């Protein structure tokens, strides 16, 4: 066919020599093909640059193949040439809806190698900020999932609350998107009294706001129709696909790293792990909403118990000297300079450390050869693992459910493609 690509011309040639027909009873045999639909990487609701190739029978999906890597930035390779402190801001770019959780997961892995004891106050601050990150991540998720299903108002409501949190993050660490706050051995700076006050203020009204989202969704017939029995995954399948976080707990598996191997101060506050029954989208929605309430409870208790003390471990080999001394004292200046440029050595060994992020288990595997840079760093991002179960969860549902299924994992491509 060397003619110009014009559909009118093409139509004229139909049945002549462009297609060969198999004859059945003297008539051309009907050819049946599934519709192949390419979704993404540029698509308004594939949550970033995810690309999915769908094979469809009418509107029903018979095959779904995700293609990943459009946002690959080589974080793991970059880490091999960066000191441990320099890696922290790299991890911000993983799950950018809650960047500090990634910091936390990374510094915990390094601390496990270093075997340092974190001061009490630092642990409390870390837990508070981690739960604020969970709130920010879940609010982002709820808004976008509702928007995907067509309820646009919820999106603006959740972003209204997220805005308050982002303002607080700005006060805590100076940034709103790629926030970097955790340091190996502690945190960057102390929580000011103003942050604490405003956080109390936020927590006072937050449960009502969650109720407000729920009035629009929880008992809405359309919302239930769009989420119940959609993307069902059984507990056995969820475990064997390696799902974690709300996606796993939605199927009724009671596994939360914060309870299973408590870190921070999670064992010192009272909270519950919400569990689903059916493993469908509605249960996962309910779990995330419930987790927001639990996070608010955790933050409240941590703020009440917040002790005085150091915000970073007093170990001159890995932490900076106090800021005011750096500006007046020459030894401190040199000390600061050395840690900032050369970093610190980490004892030889291998470590894997999983942290419960908003999306699931965010793990860091680090191989150290005793130098100031990791020999190898491997990230276990929940979004990537969850994509493995995508086809299993999508088969047999309709094209309109695809966006629901993207949403129900809470996929962030920054983390998925690394």
């Amino acid at each position, binding site marked *: 066919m060397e003619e110009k690509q014009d559909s009118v011309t093409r139509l004229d040639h139909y049945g002549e020599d462009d297609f060969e027909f198999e004859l059945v009873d003297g008539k051309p045999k009907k050819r049946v093909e599934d519709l192949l639909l390419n979704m993404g990487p540029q698509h*308004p609701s594939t949550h970033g640059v995810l690309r999915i190739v769908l094979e469809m029978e009418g509107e029903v999906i018979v095959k779904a193949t995700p293609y990943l890597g459009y946002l690959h930035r080589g974080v793991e390779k970059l880490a091999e040439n960066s000191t441990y402190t320099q890696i922290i801001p790299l991890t911000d770019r993983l799950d950018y809806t809650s960047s500090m959780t990634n910091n936390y997961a990374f510094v915990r892995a390094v601390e496990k190698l270093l075997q340092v004891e974190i001061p009490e106050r630092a642990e409390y601050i870390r837990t508070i900020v981690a739960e604020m990150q969970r709130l920010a991540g879940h609010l982002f998720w709820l808004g976008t999932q509702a928007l995907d299903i067509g*309820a646009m108002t919820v999106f603006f409501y959740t972003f*209204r609350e997220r805005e308050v949190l982002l303002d607080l993050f700005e006060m805590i660490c100076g940034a709103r998107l790629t926030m970097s706050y955790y340091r190996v051995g502690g945190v960057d700076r102390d929580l000011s009294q103003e942050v604490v006050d405003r956080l109390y203020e936020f927590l006072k009204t937050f449960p009502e706001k969650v109720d407000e989202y729920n009035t629009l*969704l929880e008992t809405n017939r*359309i919302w239930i129709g769009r989420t119940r029995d959609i993307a069902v995954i059984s507990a056995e399948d969820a475990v064997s696909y390696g799902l974690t976080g709300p996606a796993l707990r939605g199927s009724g598996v009671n596994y939360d790293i914060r309870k299973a191997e408590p870190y921070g101060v999670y064992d010192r506050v009272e909270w519950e792990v919400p569990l689903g029954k059916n493993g469908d989208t509605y249960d996962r929605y309910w779990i995330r909403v419930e987790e927001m309430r639990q996070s608010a409870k955790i933050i409240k208790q941590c703020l009440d118990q917040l002790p005085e003390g150091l915000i970073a471990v007093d170990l001159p080999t890995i932490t900076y000297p106090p800021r005011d001394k750096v500006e007046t004292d020459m030894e401190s200046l040199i000390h600061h300079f050395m840690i900032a440029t050369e970093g610190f050595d980490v004892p030889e060994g291998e470590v894997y450390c999983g942290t419960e992020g908003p999306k699931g288990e965010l793990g860091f595997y680090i191989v150290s050869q005793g130098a100031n840079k990791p020999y190898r760093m491997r990230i276990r991002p929940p979004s990537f693992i969850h994509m493995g179960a995508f086809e299993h969860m999508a088969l047999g549902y*309709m094209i309109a459910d695809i966006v629901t299924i993207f949403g129900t994992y809470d996929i962030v491509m920054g983390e998925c493609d690394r």
Partner: protein
Amino acid sequence: MDLVIQVVVVIIQIAAVLGVVLTHVAYLTYAERKILSDMQDRLGPMEVGPHGLLQPLADGLKLFFKEDIIPAGANKIIFSAAPILVLVPALIGFAVVPFGRDSLQIGPIEITPYITDINIGVLYVLAFASIGAYGILLGGWASNSKYALLGGLRSAAQVISYELPLGLALVGPILLSESLSMKTMTEAQGGGIWNWFVVAQPIAFVVYMICAIAETNRLPFDMPEAESELVAGFFTEYSGMRFSFFFLAEYANMILVSCIAVVAFLGGWQAPLPALEFIPPIVWFLVKVYFLLFFYIWLRATVPRLRFDQLMAFGWKIMLPVALVNVLLTSIIKYLLN
């Protein structure tokens, strides 16, 4: 001579109705953005003019000057014809809507508050409303894009499914007023709010409203253009003026179905109480239409989108039987009362 004057008068009427309708369409988009943003805790358009009042004008200009793109492999003739095929039926329906009661008398010339009063007004509107579906279907097919094709197919299925109950819902008021003319239908509802057909035909009214939302592709039935999965549905590949034609048609359709609802169920230009008749009928008409339009926008801010199969099941399994039973009951009661 008389004929010439008559023709001129009709042309003026058409121009006036078109002008009014298109202005309403433009400001309906503004109203929608403002009402939505108010419900969603934000400001909406604020930049162009005071409180963004000139925003529709700016949008129109922008669309007018945009590049007109016809995708490679598209069927040019159908691709160009589709937007017109959608917009014209949406506007043509306004010809039979009676906006007010009194005619304007200037010397020998009588200007009626409607362009024409044909004795099959309701059928005329329904017939043209169905033609709009062809535009959507053909536009989706001619774009040579799978997203547009799926959007067009969905639309065809949706419009056929919901046109049946929509038409059947209107049978109720037709039976009660014993006329297909919109003017007679309005006049049959005079004398107060208790005479409006919404009182005698509540089921038909609900069915009509739901089907009207589906007909105009609004949330929660905006399947053909479901932006989360189909990008923009049947007009994914359209840009510039052609896109704005689809856009205008959607909002003109919203106004049209509201006008029909007002005429058939809410008493048209009739005042709700005889004591309130000193307010001009056209004001009553507009107030009722604005109320219904507000309802549409309110709905958009509140509910999520249905899935395609749920929409079809709802249309065939619930809407159609309900509408049929309503027609049957109305006919029996009407027969017994006579």
